[in-house]
Structures are given as structure tokens and as C-alpha cells.
């Protein structure tokens, strides 16, 4: 098996989690905090845009279907704004939505992870995706 992810991998990283489901948000937050991240949360796209006025996260993890403003609309806004267009956004897709994955990439999401979030695989998959992001390739080596 591969090396365990060090507890300090995301130390000093601000991360934004956008998720309307209370438990999914809590679970994602706990996993990211466990590896040192400073986690900010928003319950929909509109709240996420408000949070982004005050902090600049290294990456964003966002659900797709949310009330008020969906993840789809959020990604469109972020891509259209030069301040945010370079921040990688990982979509959280539900199990059965096969077509969503291709749609998410086409919409500008950097990549996607499939729910349910499991501690065993979530961080490993997330870090693997982020390692492929050019700006992170050196800071996420472990």
C-alpha cells in the first residue's frame, strides 16, 4: 500500500467546502481539518461567493445540487471572474448521476469526486487529483 497521508499535508491551506447537506459538510470538513486545512464552509453558491470576498482558498470542494445557487451556477460565476478563475474546484457528484461527470468537466470543474465520502478513499483521491494540478505538484508530495 502507498504511504499514509501526513497529518500536516494541508497545514496552512485555506479550503472552501460548499455543501447544503449538514452531514456531508461536517464529514468533508473533519477530513480536511484532520490533515491540517483551515476549512471555510458555505451552504450554497451564493454563500460561497460571499466567503470568497474575504478569503482566497487554495481549492474549493463543491456539491452540485443546492438551493439558492447550484454548483453549476457557482462554477460559471467563478470561471467568469478573473479573481477566481484559477482556483481549482472539485465537484462532488452523487452516485447514480453518470452523465454529471462529463458535464462537470465541461462546465469548468477541475475534477470530480463521487459521494459517499469515505475517510479511506476521499483524501487519497482528493490529493491524487490535486497533485496533478500544476501549481500544487510540489507542495503536495509526500
Amino acid at each position, binding site marked *: 500500500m502507498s504511504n499514509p497521508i501526513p497529518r500536516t499535508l494541508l497545514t496552512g491551506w485555506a479550503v472552501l467546502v460548499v455543501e447544503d447537506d449538514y452531514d456531508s459538510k461536517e*464529514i468533508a470538513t473533519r477530513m480536511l481539518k484532520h490533515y491540517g486545512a483551515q476549512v471555510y464552509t458555505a451552504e450554497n453558491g451564493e454563500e460561497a461567493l460571499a466567503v470568497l470576498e474575504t478569503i482566497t482558498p487554495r481549492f474549493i470542494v463543491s456539491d452540485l445540487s443546492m438551493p439558492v445557487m447550484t454548483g453549476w451556477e457557482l462554477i460559471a460565476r467563478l470561471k467568469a471572474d478573473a479573481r477566481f478563475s484559477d482556483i481549482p474546484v472539485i465537484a462532488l457528484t452523487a452516485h447514480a448521476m*453518470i452523465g454529471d461527470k462529463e458535464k462537470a468537466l465541461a462546465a469548468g470543474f477541475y475534477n470530480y469526486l463521487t459521494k459517499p465520502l469515505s*475517510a479511506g478513499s476521499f483524501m487519497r483521491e482528493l490529493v491524487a487529483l490535486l497533485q496533478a494540478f500544476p501549481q500544487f505538484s510540489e507542495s503536495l508530495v509526500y
Partner: protein
Amino acid sequence: MSHELRTPLNAITGYTSITLEGMSGEIDDEARFMLQRVLLNGEHLLGLINQILDLAKIESGRVVIMPRPFNPRELSEQWQKQIGVLAAKKHIEFLTVIEEKMPPMLVGDPERISQVVLNLLSNAIKFTDKGCVTLDMRLQQNLWEVRVSDTGVGIPPHALDLIFEEFRQADNSSTRQHGGTGLGLTISRNLSRMMNGSLNVQSELGKGSTFILQLPLAIPDTLPAQ
């Protein structure tokens, strides 16, 4: 409905997995054992819910078959990758045999075909403790045929039809022993029929089983440019 069923269950397995991972501090062996059982049963229930929803979707006519050109060899490589891992865990050999005259492209719905074949392959691994599982792909007159053979426990003659019924395996103790939900073959046969094909089985008790998927797949008139 799917969202309403999955969301609370995802919360249960999610919190369990982060606790098991030690994110709230060390846990002792007894707590670890019990949490592992919570996770295992939660994942089993999630699999069951997903299959029930799949079946409901098929039965209500909400599944659409979307045929398009695909490369059967590439598809089988994906199966080899996914199933090879399961086979290796049980120290079973998994072989793929494709006849030479298999065309480079066929027209069918690769997602639905994969759903059926992966179900047959994972069943074969599940019910085989030693020996091998073989996938044999060939053209049989106008039909594309995939045979999944195993050297597993086999199916008694009286159960050959029954295994395609909902929530049935060859005997009642079987789901406990072998896991699974008892819906995989029902879904697979339904999907095969939706693709105008058939799914059948031959088996000898104690020697193994062969599941035969036959689909009327067309060969595209023009091949894509190399």
C-alpha cells in the same frame, strides 16, 4: 427518492469511516470491530438501495439505451482491470479470450453492456473459491456473445430460473454466505432484454457455471479514420 434514501445512509457510513480512521482519536479493538460492522452493513444496505432504485428505474421505463460505436477490446480491458483486482484478492485466475475476427468497433450501449458483464464477472468471482473465471467474447451468427464461465459452486437444476428472480439466490443461506443483494441478475436480464438480447445460464453443480449474454450489435458501416 434516491437522494432521500442515500443521504442519511451516507452520513452513517461517513461518520463511521472517519471515526475508524482515528480522526477523533485512538479507538480500541472492540470499538474498531463494531464500527467495521456498522460500515460493512451500511455499505451493504447502500448497495441494496442502489440496486432497488436501478430496478425500479428499469421497470418504470426510465432507463434509455443509448447505442453508439464502441471498441469491444477496449471495453474488455476495463473489465479486466476492475475485476482483476477482485480475482487477485481471492487468488483466482481471470482470463479474457476474444476471437480474432472480432471487429474493432461495434454499435451498442457500452455503459449498459458493462453493467451486465461486470455483474456476471463479480458473481463468478463471488461464487468461485479456486480455479478460474473466463470471459469469452465472440460473434455467433448475427449475435455478439459474451460467455462468463467459472469453476465455482455451480447452480442446482431447480434453481436455474429462480436465480433471475428478485431477491433470490440458489438457496436461502446463500446471501449470508456469499453476500450480494439478490438483484444483480434480475437487473442484468432486464437490461439484456431492453437491448433486444438475452441472458441465460448453463451450470453443473460443483463444477461451475456459464452465463451467456447475447446481443444483436451492429458493425458500423464506416470505421473512424485511423
